[in-house]
Structure formats: structure tokens, C-alpha cells
């Protein structure tokens, strides 16, 4: 874990400092801080199944399907559902009236469009039909051609942003990006050499 990056010497020194400081400052040594961090990880592990706070069962299933389509699993990582994006979106939507109107209304609108076009709700549509409808609402330029699409495009844009939030703030999303920080290092190493950039 992260603490490995601090040399044993630095750690001992830091614990020594902590003892000196103990008389006055309310500091905790680095080792203890790292320990506290791992405890939080363990507590989080038994989270269990999620009960949606805002969306009903059908809407939540649709939300999950859309999230996974926006950021699917691929060779490099899992997708938005594994990342917990639907849970995050449900929680913030339950607290945000603007999101409730846009996302709640948007999901109903999506089903209504699918029903009028294909005779069934989004989840029951064939893969090709789902792609056809998403390709319409995933681009602003389509709303410029057909103003009737404006609300759906707005809905999908917000959902896409929130799915990105949920995916890229998850454990798998952070790993996918290659973020290497949130750790303890005794000295900041600066910028690594980049071949071709120094020219």
C-alpha cells in the first residue's frame, strides 16, 4: 500500500517528531494516517445491495442500461455499472429538483419516443433500435435540425456528464485514467522525463 513509498527511516523520524510534538500539536504520525485510510476502505467493502432513493425500479433499470452504454466495459476496465455510476446519479438526483425534472422526465421521454417509434419501451427495444435512438439524442447538431429533440439532447448531455462523474471517481475509473497520487511520498519527484517533449 501507499505507505511503502515512505522510507522506513523517514517513518521512524516522523514518529520521533510526533512524540516531540505530542506535547503541543494535535498531529498524528503518517503511519497512523495511512492506517486510518485502510480502515475506511474496509468499512466501505460491505456496502451491500443498493436501494434506489429516487428512481422507480423500471426507471433505475433503464438508467443502469444507459450508463453502461455511455461508459461500457472494454478490454481496459469495467463499465459504469461496476463503477457505481447509477447509485451516484440516483443519490444526487434525489437531492436535486433540477436533476429530477431533467433525468426523471428524460427517461419517461425516452420510453415515450421508443414506444411511438418501435412500439415498446427502451429496454425492450432491439440493440439496433436502441442505437438508432441514442444516436439521435447524443448530439447537439440533431437538435439544430429537429428542434423537437432539444429536450432529449439536453437530458442525454446531463446524463453523460453525471455518468462520467460516477465512472471516473470510482476505483476502476481512477485506475483506468492512470491517476497515481493520493499517497505519501517523502519528497515530490517533479516532472518525469518525457521523450520527444523537451525539443
Amino acid at each position, binding site marked *: 500500500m501507499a505507505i511503502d513509498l515512505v522510507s522506513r527511516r523517514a517513518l521512524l523520524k*516522523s514518529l520521533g517528531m510526533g512524540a516531540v510534538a505530542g506535547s503541543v500539536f494535535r498531529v498524528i*504520525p503518517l503511519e497512523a*494516517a495511512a492506517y486510518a485510510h485502510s480502515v475506511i476502505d474496509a468499512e466501505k467493502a460491505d456496502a451491500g445491495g443498493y436501494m434506489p432513493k429516487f428512481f422507480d425500479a423500471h426507471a433505475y433499470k433503464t438508467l443502469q442500461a444507459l450508463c453502461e452504454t455511455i461508459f461500457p466495459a472494454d478490454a481496459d476496465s469495467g463499465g459504469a455499472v461496476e463503477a457505481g455510476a447509477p447509485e451516484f446519479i440516483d443519490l*444526487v438526483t434525489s437531492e436535486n429538483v433540477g436533476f429530477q425534472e431533467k433525468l426523471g422526465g428524460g427517461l419517461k421521454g425516452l420510453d415515450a419516443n421508443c414506444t411511438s417509434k418501435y412500439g415498446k419501451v427502451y429496454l425492450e427495444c432491439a440493440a439496433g433500435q436502441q442505437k438508432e435512438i441514442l444516436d439521435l439524442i447524443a448530439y447537439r447538431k440533431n437538435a439544430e435540425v429537429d428542434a423537437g429533440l432539444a429536450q432529449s439532447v439536453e437530458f442525454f448531455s446531463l446524463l453523460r456528464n453525471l455518468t462520467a*462523474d460516477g465512472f471516473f471517481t470510482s476505483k476502476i475509473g481512477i485506475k483506468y485514467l492512470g491517476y*497515481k497520487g493520493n*499517497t505519501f511520498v517523502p519528497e515530490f519527484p517533479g516532472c518525469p522525463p518525457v521523450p520527444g517533449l523537451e525539443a
Partner: protein
Amino acid sequence: MFQVNSRKTVYDVCIIGSGAGGGTAAKVLTEGGLNVVMLEAGPRLDPDRDFKEHMWPYQLPHRGAGIGGLGSNFGEFLAPNGFWEIDGEPYTTAPGSSFRWFRSRIEGGRTNHWGRIALRFGPADFRAHSTDGMGDDWPITYEELAPYYDKVEAYIGVFGSKENVPNAPDGIFLPPPKPRCTETLIKKACDRLNITCIPSRMAILTKPLNGRDACHYCAQCGRGCKSASNFSSSQVMIPPAAATGRLTMIANAMAREIVVDGSGKAEAVSYIDKTTKSEQRVYAKAVVVAASACESARLLLNSRSANFPNGLGNSSGAVGRNLTDSVGSDLAGYFPQLEKMPAHNHDGVGGMHMYMPWWRFGKQNEFLRGYHIEFGGGRDMPGVGGFDGVCEEQEGYGVSLKQKCRSSYGTFIGFSGRGEMIPNDKCFCELDPDVKDQWGIPVLRFHWSWGENEIKMAADMQATFRSVVEGAGGTVIAGTRRHPKPQGTAEQPAGKISKGGEIIHELGTVRMGSDTKTSVLNAHCQAHDVKNLFVADAAPFVSNPDKNPTLTIMALAWRTSEYLLEQAKKGEV
């Protein structure tokens, strides 16, 4: 028979507020031998419980964002109790004015999550009026304050480098950290553009100091630091004061009024104990007000008596006047060459390693005074809202969008200008005649209007940002839908200048001066009208230079406290 409370405790000094100024005063006064009682409007701080240091976004229900997924109150990661709005404790704005007031109700106040930027004011900043005729000169010079900057820096620890930049004095510095990739890139462009770009000056330890560990480079200073490797009053000023045995801290104590005796001297502070909702009173031989500039003005205005019908120490009418904030303007750029950067730990300290001090000092410019530039970005911890830009630019969905988010991650750098505002008659705070808070205390009403100089300065910032972005091979990016550029007005052009108060450098409302008709305090931050009343936050500042105020709050509070100690020893207060 008269009831005499023979056990009434009279402290030497009552300090109101435990932030940068109050904490400094508590340390200096208790170490000098005085018995001090401190009133703090919020709870005690427990870093172990309160700080979110080293947590990942997925360990918090909102992934680090605020309730509702928005950035209100800076989100879940921020060190505790910092708010744009506080339930039950409102403030108002006059018609046509917009102003935002960030308050922190907790031991240590805003120093728990401040930006740690620790810049000295320069010699010219203390005599700006003599230079360009605007505003007023301070009643003290840089040379008078310099020894106190030395003391503060040597005690709290500030990193930086000796640079001899005009009017940006060097201090007593710990070594600066190495620059990040983003900073190396921008520094090169600045060199070509003749813009000074130097190591920043931050109150973060790059070496162990005075019993505190060195920084471990997690970039999370704003969350509060459990190892106290950065400066906060709660972790660095209050503990040594408490260790003297002469500090009595009363938490959850909202000061209502400073009470004067028949001779017009301050003798007590009445406050509300928020826990029991009861009225209390604490007696002291001297009072140091350090509640933050506007809160201190509010307290004085609310302390009305026969002797002081317009508020305590306010015979000049200057309390609440001369309110300023920093001029703020921001712009971000996308730098495609950063896509080649290998994954690496980019965190560093919680804030910039380099910055641009005002580099056109003494030159003929389109506006008076100056600004500095802060910048940051790159491979930071991913956060809510961080991918709006690329999602809205790229659109669509699926693996290609996911890959685009990855390739563009870490390629954005944001620039923020922070400039000097000149005080004007339209910017002030006063008591709202109609609105009281939940404790029955009249609230502040803010009046605000940027002057022409500030608008010109903000426009210059935008032009500079653009030249730096383009000079470094980047392209300027627009705001996103979730964080759109605000709708503009003539006075507040869209996206070009911050709202009043938004930079959280509000100050000047109980100012010092040598003229008793236009100032409240003398050169020792002692009230002209009440000799045992002092102010020790940013309210005494006569000007608001482009240097963040906290270091100067502490230097001035240290100087004020030494004067108060001296006066106490002579029996003068």
C-alpha cells in the same frame, strides 16, 4: 442588599474569533503571560474526525461533490464548516448589489481550508495613495511590519525562493518543491513572454519545523492536514496557546455585543451559548476582535450604547466602509502535448508550486495597481465535474468517448488572476434595519459595485491568460454547461470578473489610519475611541494589494498583540 458576584472572573483579554488573527493573538498574548478567553462561534476541531484527507471520492456518498451533485460549499472534501450560506445566520444584499460572504464557524475558522498562499505585501502597497492618489496610505510602513512577517514565517513555515521581484518581498523561506510538468510547461512560455514565473510562496512545510512533520505531498491541503504540515490556526496557533495553561476556549459562542463601562471602556462581551441557547457574558480588561473583517464590523455596529450610538469605536462612521475583495478572473486552456505525459504522481502540495507575481510593477499600464496569477491543473485526482468539458465537446457515447476522456485527462490548466481593488464609496456593509439572525442579532447588508479600474484589470488578466495559453501551445476552452459562464451586465461583464466577496479576501471594514475622522483604529490596530479595544483580522487593512491577506493578518495581529502586551505590562489597558 446588593447582590455582588464576588467570583466573577475577569480575564486579561477576550479574543473573539479563532482564525488567523485570533489564533496569532492567542499565542502571543498567552505566551506573554496574559490570561485569555477566546470566543469561537463554532465547535472545537478534531482533525481525526473532521478532515477527509486521503479519502478517495468513491469513499464518500457524493463522490466528493456537494449535496445534489453540485459544488455548493466546495463539496464533501473541504475541511469542515465553511459555508456560502449558513442556516439561521443570513446576510442580505442591497438592491442592485451582489456579494457573497464565505464564513467558517469552527475552531481555526477559514484557516482550516484556506489556499495557504502566503505572500508579503510590498513597500509600495503601504503607500499606494502617495504613488497614484487613490485610496489611502497605511499608517505603518513595510519596514515596520517586516520583523513580524519574519516572526510569522519562521514560526509557521513558508516555502519559497529569493527572487528580488520588485514590491514582492522575499521572506524567510523553506525550500520550494520541484515544479510539476504543467508548471514547467507554463514557465517556459512565461520566459518567452517576459512574464515573471517563480516558485510560489505557501504556508506548507517542505522540511519538519517546530515539531510539525514535513508535507507528504498528497495535494489535499484544502481538506485539512492531519499531520499539520500546512498552516492552520487550529493546529499551529491554538495548541501552543493552550499549552501555556492561560487560554480558556469557549466554543459555540456567538458574540452579540461588546459591553462598555461608564467610562466608555470595553468591559465584557455578551454572547449566545449556541449549545444551551442561553445569554452569557465574559469579562475582560481588553477585547481583541478577530471575527473576520465583516463579522468584526458587524459586532462593532451592534455594540451600541449611550457613548457610542453608531456602534463601538465608530465616531468616524468608517466601520463597515472601504470594503474590498480581490479582483478575480479565470480562464482555462487545453494543452495537447500533455497527452504524451506518462502516468505519474502529479499531486505535490495542496496548491501551486509556481506562480506569476505582478511583473509590470512601476510600468505604465491601462489601470492602476496590479495582479498576480495562480495556475493549476494536470493529472489531479479525478473529481465530479472534471469531465464535463470533454463530454460536451466530444458528445456521443461508448468506448471512443471513454478513451477520449482518458487521453485528454491531465491536459487542462486553469489560470486565476488575483488583483488589487481600490476602495470606493459604493462598497460597504451596514446593519440591515429589518433582518435578524436566529439569535436575534441584526445581520449585515452588503453594497457592492466594481470600479472602472477593476474592470480594466480583469480584461487585462483575460488577455494575459490567452497569451500564456497560446504561447504554451494550448487552446483556450469555453465554460461547460453545468458551470456556464455567467450572464453579464455592463458592470459585471460575463465571465470576466468575479462577484464581490467570491475570492474570499473581503477586508478593510474597520480600517487603521492616522486621521480619526476617516479611520477607526490607530497604527497599533487600537480603536481611536476605546483604548482597550483592538482588531486583529483583515478589517484593519487600508488597502487590499494583489497579495492574499492571510500572512499579513498574522503579521499585523502579532504586532498588535505585542503592543497590547506592552500596554498591559504598563497598566495602560
